[in-house]
């Protein structure tokens, strides 16, 4: 079965900011499939930060992975960008009309995140085994337990949030997500990390948490216990 990991901007940003892109390169060498990024994600992780001096180095390092074929575009697996755009718009429309506050829809996700979900849908239709690598929590909650999204919005807004479209909610179930932290655990288990040992794993996981990955202290402890 063909396999693919779809990377959202947030996961690549965490890995790049923690100098863990070499580990990603090593992981690709043992992966029997493709690491894919959509055009929308490429813009966020390469094109845009190249113009921000503070992040240009990370953007260049990511660009290098792209040039080396570690990351590929969806066209490599036979999916046209027009197909992704069409599906992305459908997902955006659905996701951003599920919840309402004072009868107004709450826009919760944007193009890059929706494009990853769109690509995942299209790959599944083609019989691929695919997983989305995403570090930011909103997309994950929406794809795994959308009912929690309403509770979270209500808790933070101190307002009644209506779930106006159950059909939309059902459409978002069935996605599978991992984070950069799980990828680093795999790299560690397969002895691909530059820094070895339990302390190294601990340091990498905490560093990811402090630079972008939505992972709790408890989850880090749990990963370490698995070891």
């Amino acid at each position: 079965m063909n396999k693919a990991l779809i990377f959202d901007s947030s996961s690549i940003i965490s890995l790049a900011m923690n100098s863990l892109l070499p580990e990603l390169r090593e992981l690709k060498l043992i992966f029997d499939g493709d690491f894919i990024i959509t055009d929308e994600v490429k813009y966020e992780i390469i094109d845009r930060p190249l113009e921000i001096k503070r992040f240009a180095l990370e953007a260049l390092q990511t660009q290098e992975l792209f040039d080396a074929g570690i990351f590929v575009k969806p066209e490599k697996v036979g999916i046209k960008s027009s197909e992704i755009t069409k599906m992305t718009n459908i997902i955006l429309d659905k996701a951003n009309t599920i919840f309402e506050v004072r009868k107004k829809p709450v826009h919760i996700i944007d193009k890059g995140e929706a494009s990853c979900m769109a690509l995942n849908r299209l790959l599944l239709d083609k019989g691929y085994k695919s997983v989305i690598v995403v570090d930011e929590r909103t997309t994950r909650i929406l794809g795994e337990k959308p009912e929690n999204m309403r509770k979270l919005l209500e808790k933070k807004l101190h307002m009644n949030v209506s779930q106006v479209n159950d059909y939309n909610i059902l459409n978002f179930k069935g996605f599978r997500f991992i984070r950069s932290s799980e990828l680093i655990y795999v790299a560690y288990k397969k002895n691909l990390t530059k820094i070895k040992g339990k302390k190294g794993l601990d340091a990498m996981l905490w560093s990811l948490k402090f630079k972008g990955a939505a992972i709790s202290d408890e989850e880090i402890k749990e990963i370490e216990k698995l070891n």
Partner: protein
Amino acid sequence: MVIKEEIPNVIDILEKAKKAIEENDVILLKELGNRTIHTASTAQDTDSILLAVIMYTLSKLIERPEHKDKAIKNFCSVCSISFDKAIENLKKGKQKEFVASLERIQQSILRLSPQMRDYVKDVMYKAKINKASKIYEHGISMEKTAKLLGISMWELASYTGYKNISEEERELSETEQVKVRIKTALEMFE
């Protein structure tokens, strides 16, 4: 554009902000900034977001020793006068003029001395990142939030990890067991 239902709330925020500036009440300014964030998260209007950023910027300017500088005091006075105009315009339903009153605050930064201008700009930049992290906490995605504030996802990512979240929020965010995610990841590499 400020939505109709929010107008009384925004007027109240601006009136309280004026008082807070007069009394150097940093805590009240921060509270007002947070109140604006609820609206900014749902309505996602750039005016509410700008207002939240201004409130936080003012609180930071007032709480630091540089506040004693004449230029900063003048800047706070400009904000207060602009708030008066903003209230007046909002009461008359003049949304465009309301926005212009807030934008005048940003323009006044350009009239500061180069050193003070950089200082205020830096405080305002940090205020943007802070407010972005608050909106992200509200459940709006990282990309969407970054776009609303006009910052990059990289800038937001480098700040979000330091935030503490409540137990309930953590439970709501943990939508899959970590051992299941690890299993999924390992399976992909088999």
